């Protein structure tokens, strides 16, 4: 190990005064220049907090930061950035009304002699950056039309444009399409070759083991240790992450390797397909705002899990919008329990007990400035009042109980924005599943979840199935689709390219289908 670390954090302690949670307890953390360093841990283990401290977003209560041996104190992200440290956040900050280019150059616009923004120069410089790192984007696209990975690429490019040397990536696996996870590795290696130092916040074991040089593990606000990636295996890493305290997580079953996934899908009880619950007939969509759909038809029966998968921009998001009443299809029909629901309003669908967990968890799925309780009662607040007066005690009791059932580490009165990403997800999922839905539309189930969270969600999905409900999973994660679904609908360029039983295919096969290679069976 080299002697002088680029970043040296010592004794970082951070307590959130709002809820008294100690997110970091005297954490020591070193990063060597030019390395790819993975920071792993479960949700709420304090890894994001530590990086928020490093990137100037949060102020530590105690502890010191040295950059190249010089003590530093970053009061704002801007100060950190001028010291060369930038962070791509999981919850992205982007000006939706600006184009990609404008977002990238914001704050550092090149000027002409007249003081105007020199767009040509900016375009050229950004183009060079995109070529250099293999991050191709349409710079004139308005930011609001970007998918999450597009937004992340934009944030990354803006940090590179600002000259960031150390780049912190929060859960970067959403940065690249499933089609080519290698692209992520390529980009990371390119970044390292160009002299950047990278810190990856992640809870994906595979990702951290294969992409990084060193791995630091956090648990319950402390840094458990730093290891060379070669010293660790998936088992030893997951053990270090979750420790021995959670019994059901020890042992190989908790590890979402593709082998374990295949075993799990093989052990699905072979429930006979029940009555048809949802049927799509030749759904088409042609509109300005979303990718088009053509002749999308499939069925979903009671007690069945169907995953719709595909690469982003191939129609998954359009299908999500149409099935949940946010967008009306231009052609075709949808039947639910043999009754037409094409073009039904969101409220009508809600009355039919269709639960929906959206991709946009924080924008659509939750109100960040409201309390946990207020987020939990959105579907059934009408049950909690008499003559229009809300029954506060019943609401407290309801949300407290739900919080306990799902092991949410917050009280009903806490503001949602103070919760960790994983706990916010649990608030949303607990609320949706509490209504005992007959149909659950679940988009990107394990998005932003850690090992335990992911396991928890997949178990939940299976238990809903056992109760005879149907689940439609919309996911761009092949492994997830294979692991949980009975059948997989693969989308390609707005069309259904294949419908397969999950035991008949493997990851590679699905990958081919997602790229438009037709299934022969």
């Amino acid at each position: 190990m080299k002697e002088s670390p680029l970043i040296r954090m010592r004794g970082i302690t951070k307590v959130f005064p709002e809820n008294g949670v100690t997110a970091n307890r005297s954490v020591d953390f070193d990063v060597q220049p030019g390395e790819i360093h993975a920071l792993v841990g479960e949700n709420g283990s304090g890894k994001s907090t530590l990086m928020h401290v490093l990137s100037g977003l949060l102020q530590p209560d105690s502890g010191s930061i040295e950059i190249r041996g010089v003590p530093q104190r970053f009061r704002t992200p801007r100060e950190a950035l001028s010291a060369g440290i930038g962070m791509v956040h999981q919850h992205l900050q982007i000006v939706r009304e600006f184009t990609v280019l404008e977002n990238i150059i914001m704050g550092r616009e090149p000027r002409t002699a007249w003081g105007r923004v020199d767009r040509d120069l900016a375009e050229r410089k950004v183009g060079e950056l995109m070529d250099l790192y293999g991050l191709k984007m349409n710079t004139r696209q308005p930011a609001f039309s970007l998918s999450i990975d597009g937004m992340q690429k934009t944030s990354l490019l803006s940090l590179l444009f600002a000259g960031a040397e150390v780049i912190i990536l929060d859960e970067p696996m959403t940065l690249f399409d499933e089609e080519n996870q290698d692209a992520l590795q390529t980009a990371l290696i390119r970044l390292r070759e160009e002299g950047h130092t990278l810190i990856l916040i992640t809870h994906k074991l595979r990702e951290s083991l294969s992409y990084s040089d060193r791995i630091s593990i956090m648990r319950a606000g402390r840094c458990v240790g730093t290891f060379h990636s070669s010293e660790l295996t998936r088992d030893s890493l997951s053990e270090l992450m979750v420790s021995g305290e959670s019994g059901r997580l020890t042992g190989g079953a908790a590890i979402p390797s593709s082998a374990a996934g295949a075993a799990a899908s093989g052990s699905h009880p072979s429930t006979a397909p029940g009555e048809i619950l949802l049927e799509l007939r030749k759904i088409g969509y042609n509109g300005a705002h979303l990718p088009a759909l053509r002749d999308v038809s499939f069925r979903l029966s009671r007690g069945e899990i169907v995953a719709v998968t595909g690469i982003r921009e191939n129609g998954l998001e359009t299908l999500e919008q149409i099935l949940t009443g946010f967008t009306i299809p231009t052609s075709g029909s949808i039947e639910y329990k043999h009754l037409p629901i094409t073009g039904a309003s969101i409220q009508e669908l809600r009355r039919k007990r269709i639960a929906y967990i959206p991709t946009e968890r924080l924008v659509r799925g939750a109100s960040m400035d409201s309390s946990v309780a207020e987020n939990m009662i959105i579907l059934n607040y009408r049950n909690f009042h008499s003559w229009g007066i809300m029954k506060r005690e019943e609401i407290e009791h309801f949300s407290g109980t739900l919080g306990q059932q799902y092991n949410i580490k917050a009280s009903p009165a806490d503001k949602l924005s103070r919760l960790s990403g994983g706990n916010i997800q649990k608030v949303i999922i607990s609320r949706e599943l509490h209504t005992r839905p007959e149909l659950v539309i679940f988009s990107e189930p394990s998005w932003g979840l850690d090992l335990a969270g992911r396991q928890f969600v997949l178990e939940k999905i299976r238990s809903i199935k056992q109760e005879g409900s149907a689940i439609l999973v919309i996911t761009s994660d092949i492994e997830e689709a294979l692991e949980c679904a009975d059948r997989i609908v693969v989308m390609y360029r707005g069309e259904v390219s294949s419908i397969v039983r999950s035991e008949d295919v493997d990851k590679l096969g699905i990958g081919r289908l997602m790229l438009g290679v037709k299934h022969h069976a």
Partner: protein
Amino acid sequence: MHSTRPASTFLSIGVAILAALLLLAAMVPFISETPLNTLRQFLTGPFSNRFYFGNYLNRTGLYILAGLAMVISFQGGMFNLGGEGQVYGGALATTLVLLMVPRFGALPGILLGTAAGIFTGAVMSGLSGFFKMKWNTDELISSFLLSSSIVYTIDYLVSGPLRDTQRFLLSTPEIAEQFRFPVLLNPSHLNAGFLVTLLLVVLAQRFLYHTSAGYELRITGLNREFAKYGGIPVRRYYLIPMALSGAFYGLTGSFYIMGTGYATIQGCTFGMGWNGIAIALIARTSPWLVPPAALVFAFLEYGAETAIMHSDFSSEFGTILQAVVLFFVTARFVKLRTKKGEL
């Protein structure tokens, strides 16, 4: 259940007031020949006798109503910029109703006059909400334009067709004695309307935080997409917060007529519509904090007015002090909001 933390809000309002007073103390020697007298008049003026003190509280009461109007609008995610016209419209409607029904008993008359004021304000503001619901018209602009044209129309009516030529002011005739609110503190204008106003603070708070309609309104105001997703009928929450906000502004006009002015005098709304926005912002859109915010705002205004009357203090400086308080409080508000956005 809500985000406001009263302790820290009180603290930041306190700091803002302190800053304004320090600025006042620092500037007074430059703007006044008799700085100590000016300062004394400013600080103690509103409390120096029953007349001033009562009038100070009376104005606070009207500001509380205007502040509540904006609290409801902001909480519903709407921006009612037409308060000025809505107060004026409410005042005129109340005046006209009470002039037309002189034979009524006191209580039915007062109720009818109040209803007319509320109705006028609610319709004026609700119209902007309706336009937004129907055609996605920006409520900020439509409410402002509508209010401005109403202000000029009423100015004309008061100086022309409705003018009481017996009076020296550009004013309608006065309402009958029986419809005037009983005075609480002679010889000031402080009247029973003030007590009703305090009751309305409690009602507004109960409505927003303890009723299902209040829940719908607040959730829609905070995150319309989430509300829609959760099955709340969001479209009507373009109309409802605007109409309620207008109703409170209209009521402000009614209470002004029945408790203070007794007639619609040209320009009698003296910026209440605008000040409602400032007060709601100082109160961080919390109904509980509206009374203290209104007390502070009216104090700065009233202190300046007494200082003007009894020294060489200029009215502009009073306005500057209000602006300083607003600046400090809202700057902090903005900072809090960005911090939330980042986390």
